């Protein structure tokens, strides 16, 4: 009995410590005492420098230089959970973000301070034109991401679906071309066109329902098949009812 009480007490005492650092993130012990830029540097040293090198110089075989990555790329890779990677050969995947909001801000600011990279873009999808967005998405994005942004494959990699991408992340991805994706400069896709593109992607995330059962917007063919199967069942049921009435 006493042993159990001791065990419970021990658990209670250590619980906060266990709850605080989620797996995979290394934090400085005295985080609250550090200035933002110091905390950013410490987080960088603990979580990024193995592959990206001291002060973002990069390494020859594990990760590229972050000198001119800027806040744009740092914001994208960190807020999507693409980074940190557990293994440098992996394809980065959208996942849980283990950094807190404050940690993200200071880390992004630190990486931005390493060189002259572009800032975090601020798209305005509400100014965009949906028709233009569809046209741009068809010619630039749909080859890999599919026309409704469901993702797919390209040889050697998986193409992510865009259902969770925020407006800022879409704009960032277009400019930086994460992993194997090509990047598009402002001459290829102007800021105004980017607004339209983001607006179209947002439409695919929340497609308009014209009433009725949306069936998860799985596409016209499966929707039609479901309709026919249900309609066929209803027809058979009606026929059986009529047959029974006539028979009795």
């Amino acid at each position: 009995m006493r042993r159990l009480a001791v065990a419970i007490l021990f658990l209670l005492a250590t619980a906060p410590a266990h709850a605080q650092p989620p797996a995979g993130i290394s934090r400085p012990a005295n985080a609250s005492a550090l200035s933002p830029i110091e905390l950013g540097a410490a987080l960088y040293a603990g979580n990024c420098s193995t592959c990206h090198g001291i002060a973002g110089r990069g390494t020859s075989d594990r990760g590229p230089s972050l000198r001119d990555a800027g806040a744009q790329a740092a914001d994208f890779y960190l807020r999507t959970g693409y980074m940190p990677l557990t293994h440098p050969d992996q394809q980065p995947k959208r996942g849980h973000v283990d950094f807190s909001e404050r940690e993200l801000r200071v880390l992004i600011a630190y990486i931005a301070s390493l060189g002259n990279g572009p800032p975090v873009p601020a798209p305005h999808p509400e100014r965009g034109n949906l028709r233009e967005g569809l046209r741009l998405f068809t010619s630039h994005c749909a080859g890999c991401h599919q026309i409704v942004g469901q993702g797919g494959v390209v040889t050697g990699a998986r193409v992510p679906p865009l259902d969770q991408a925020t407006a800022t992340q879409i704009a960032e991805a277009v400019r930086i071309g994460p992993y194997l994706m090509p990047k598009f400069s402002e001459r290829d896709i102007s800021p105004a066109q980017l607004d339209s593109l983001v607006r179209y992607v947002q439409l695919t995330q929340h497609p308009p329902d014209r009433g009725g059962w949306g069936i998860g917007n799985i596409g016209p063919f499966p929707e039609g098949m479901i309709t026919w199967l249900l309609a066929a069942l209803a027809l058979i049921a009606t026929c059986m009812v009529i047959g029974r009435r006539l028979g009795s």
Partner: protein
Amino acid sequence: MKRFVLTLLAIINGLRRRRERIGAREEEARREEGPIVPPGPHAPRAELAVALLLFAAALCGAGFIVVYAVGGDWNRTQLQGITLGGAFAFLAIALITVGKHLVSEEEVEDSYHDPEHPSEQERIDKIVEESASGITRKKLLITAGGAAGAAVGLAAITPALTLGPLLDTDELRETPWRRGLRLIGEDGKPLFAGQVEEETFYTAFPEHADRDLIGSPVVVVRLAPEQLRLPPERAKWAPLGIVAFSKVCTHAGCAIALYRKPTFKPTQPRPALVCPCHYSTFDPARGGEVIFGPAGRPLPQLPLVVGGDGILRAGGNFSGQVGPAYGTVRSRRPT
């Protein structure tokens, strides 16, 4: 060629004579007995119709050969379809008419027995022979049938001529690209070499040319010059590391709409042009070589030069034949 035709004629002649000799002997034997099948209906109008239908089939078959040989843009496949389809349709109607109106029908109930017996065999031959007793204008019908058969048969093998040197199929290999033609982007503006960036891709067309031609669109990417592993004869085809390839996949003719590029070269797959239809993957650094997928030929590369005005221009025509697999039968440099 001449010797071949003469041999063919000699063989046909020989066959005909042999058949005549055998025919004469059998005829004599059969005349000795009376007819088995009652004399058939005489339907001279049906006969004439059959002859006309067969000639129509022959005409359609010949028409197909002419359409195939002449070529031209105007609805070529549709005309080919109409003529060949018409030939088969007329042939079918002619055969139905023969069956319904010219061949007398007789149903014989008989127990099974050995058909190998010579006299039985002769009897069957005789029935078959006499079934055609309703036919009076035998020669006309044989001529018409022969013409129809020959024309449709020839029409069926005509496309095989594409394999050989007889017909001019060079138009399949024509592209609008010529030395000195400027590359025009999708927006209608010329593509400047200085504007072409790495890690992205561009689509371009030849100036003043029809964009819908299969040889028109090219995909343009820029690689670091030290990344290039082009064949030695193409060393000068990539100014500033800019390379251009036909945008039409050599497998099934889809548009090369995917470009994958590594963010970090040591750990990620190398740059590649990918076709979204069946994932044929081509290596732009190695002259469009196939690195994955069902494509059988490399992507044809377009030589590039930079003009004095900084605009990208074609340095000649493609390295190989543009377009999908049908062109692989006889692959030649395009003109």
